[in-house]
């Protein structure tokens, strides 16, 4: 079936199999593999995207459900070739190791900071509790979030 949606501000369309997730459509049909396929069951947050401004796991959205809606992926955060402050902070703070969780965490952090400019450490932990990281133990991710919050 054919779906039409907006991704990172651009209208686009894709032919999808009816049972396909938005994650598969983004990665395999729309050339946007930044959202990651780590668990495909909503347990890790690696595929976090914004659906009409809300943070969701793309693996749990049926591609057909995205018809007519607006998606923002990690690829859509940088503007005019300049990194988003959250992206800059993740690099500077050493919050990236293997990086497989990073796109999801970057999107989740951008979402948190858009809603809460001065998050407490508890706010950060709760907001990112749906994003698993296996490499960092989260310490440098928290550093990055604080660093990004201070720079925004």
């Amino acid at each position: 079936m054919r779906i039409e949606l907006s991704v990172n501000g651009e209208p686009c369309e894709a032919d999808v199999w009816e049972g396909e997730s938005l994650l598969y459509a983004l990665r395999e049909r729309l050339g946007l593999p930044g959202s990651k396929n780590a668990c495909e069951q909503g347990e890790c947050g690696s595929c976090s995207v914004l659906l009409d401004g809300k943070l969701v796991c793309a693996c749990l959205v049926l591609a057909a459900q995205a018809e007519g809606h607006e998606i923002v992926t990690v690829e859509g955060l940088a503007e005019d070739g300049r990194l988003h402050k959250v992206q800059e902070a993740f690099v500077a703070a050493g919050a990236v190791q293997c990086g497989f969780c990073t796109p999801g965490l970057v999107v989740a952090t951008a979402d948190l900071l858009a809603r809460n400019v001065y998050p407490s450490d508890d706010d950060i932990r709760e907001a990112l509790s749906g994003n698993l990281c296996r490499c960092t133990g989260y310490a440098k991710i928290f550093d990055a979030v604080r660093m990004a919050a201070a720079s925004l």
Partner: protein
Amino acid sequence: MSEATVPKLELGRVGESLPRVDGIPKVTGEFAYSSDLQAAGMLWGHTVRSPHAHARVGTIDISAAVGMPGVHAVLTHEDIPGEKRYGLEFQDQPVLAYERVRYFGEPVALVAAEHPEQARRAAERIRVEYEPLEPLVDPERATEAEPLHPDRPTMGHGYRDDPRPNIVRSLVIRQGDPAAEGDVAVSGVYEIGIQDQAFLGPESGLAVPDGEGGVDVYVATQWLHVDRDQVAPCLNLKPEQVRIHLAGVGGAFGGREDLSMQIHGALLALHTNRPVKIVYNREESFVGHIHRHPAKIWAEHRASRDGRLVNVRVRILLDGGAYASSSTAVTSNAASFAVGPYAVDNALIESTCVYTNNPPCGAMRGFGAVQVCFAHEAQMDKLAEALDIDPIELRLLNALGPGGSLPTGQTITGTLPVADVIRRAAALDVPEAEELPRDPMRLPGGSGNTTRGEGVRRGVGFAVGFKNIGYSEGFDDYTAARVQLHADGSATVHCAAAEVGQGVANVILQVARTELGVRDVALAPHTTATVDSAGSASASRMTWMVSGAVRDACRAALEEWDKKGRSLEVDVERIYRHPRTTPLDPETGQVTGERAHVAYACAAMRVVAEVDVELGLTRVVWIGTAQDVGHAVNPQAVQGQIEGGTAQGLGLALMEEIQTRDGLITNASFTDYLIPTTLDMPPVVSELIEEAEPDAPYGVKGVGEPPTVVSTPAVVAALRAATGRELSRVPVRPDDIVGL
């Protein structure tokens, strides 16, 4: 709080916190992981797997699958042109099952189709005739059972010839008088569950036929050349016809040492003459790689009244599962480090690894040392209590150091500041208990909202551990690097070292910049095509080995450049080897030369935990650690390794376990195999003890494993302090804390 080490960009030499060279593509989503790859005309591969832990395999009828829409190939063991078995160290594992399946999820057949759904539907139509056999699932009965590998693939390799069936390796270390008595003795039995690496990037890769009978495989792996050397014989190709290229790796932790999709993808690609991509899903990933060995450890520690260890007797049983993988090295590590970083004159250590029909086990961060550290640290605490000596004092009293020796008779010649890490970790300020009331997120049970403070007790635990760096026991362990100096003053470094997230790409660049004195250094793709082997990204060896190889290649290149009048292009490759090791004596377990292990790194850790003793739920509040890291090449990356390694040990202590029933995995998902979240990991204060390792380039050491080794016992020690319970098994279950 982890102290934010904001990098200052200088030249990016050894010792600077140079930001990751792959950092920007990783935060923008552009970095190409193995599951992100695409090629024109690409097909999707799918693996049909055994639903049985043990069965005879009869006929495999693929006829119904072959003509399905979009299907281009359906393959079984009959389609393998070369060797039908492969293995990381011993060729004991079928590429595709024939005659017998020995574990749940063992690959049986392959499908390639245009869409993954078509491949799945075709896979469903393949009929495999299984005759289920009684699975051997109790490792304690393995040596009395029918042999799973009658040809005994691990025997005849210089190990002790143990005639019992299903022995992967058995090793006995005898030192001094194994009957020596002390004034006080404590004993215990400890169990460690099966831990999974749970890397986030599932096994995946793309195999592309080269049109001339060869194949290029782009894959997430830990050792490109050893993959090539396993893949080529099965395809009946020469090694150079198989080129393995490193695709982006979504974490490894040992789980990518063994092959996953490499041979399968290549078979399908060569058969269809089209690129084939295979991506495991999370459920498949749990059967798609080996795990940390579960273990049972019986330990008895005898000591003098004044607290000196007199005799340590340990028996270790490791369940290797269905195939050998790296079990022989795990067996040896467990034996070598069974006493911990302590000096003792008399020891009797028996370490045995057996085959069963449980999930195959192999490498995971800290292997061998993780299991025994849990036991020896519990024993040291027990001993401290029996002797009424402060547990930290007891550890200091027995601390091993340079000049001391291991139970294998090997003298510590390099650095090993055990007493120093103990003192520094013990001196860290433990935070005061927080006031009540608090948000439930800051209490045991977290978001579950289970307590307002009722039942909550606080405990502080301490542990010390160590592990070897590099490959041991006579293995020819080397790393190659190739350096090209260009006419414009820039340089290119080729090295096949697998960047698995640990930051080895930065190590390569930082060493090259240090040696060449220029900033403009490019890192060529990691591949088998252009440079010799780098060895494995494991055993905490890569920083050391790569530093040596890149340093030597840079120096040779500069020399060459000077000789050529400093104008022409230069291209040199050098191989670096660490000090040579020799095997352990198969009968006594004693060193046969100067060393069986190259070097060691140690860590000490202090943990504060709060435990809801009525519900058995835990919140780790704070962790402080001091680690022997040698000279830190990139301090920020070293801290990152410590924090991440600590989290994996905490996971093993509190929640991580692959569960099985009759050999079948019952929790193959991130819903039921739990790893720590942001609400489970406390702040980690880490002190780097930077003592230069004399034999190592720039005095570096590996840093990845010691935090994982030490954090499990340290966390459980805190839980014991809070609950007064013995807690001799990890992961600790709520039932154990409550006493059910």
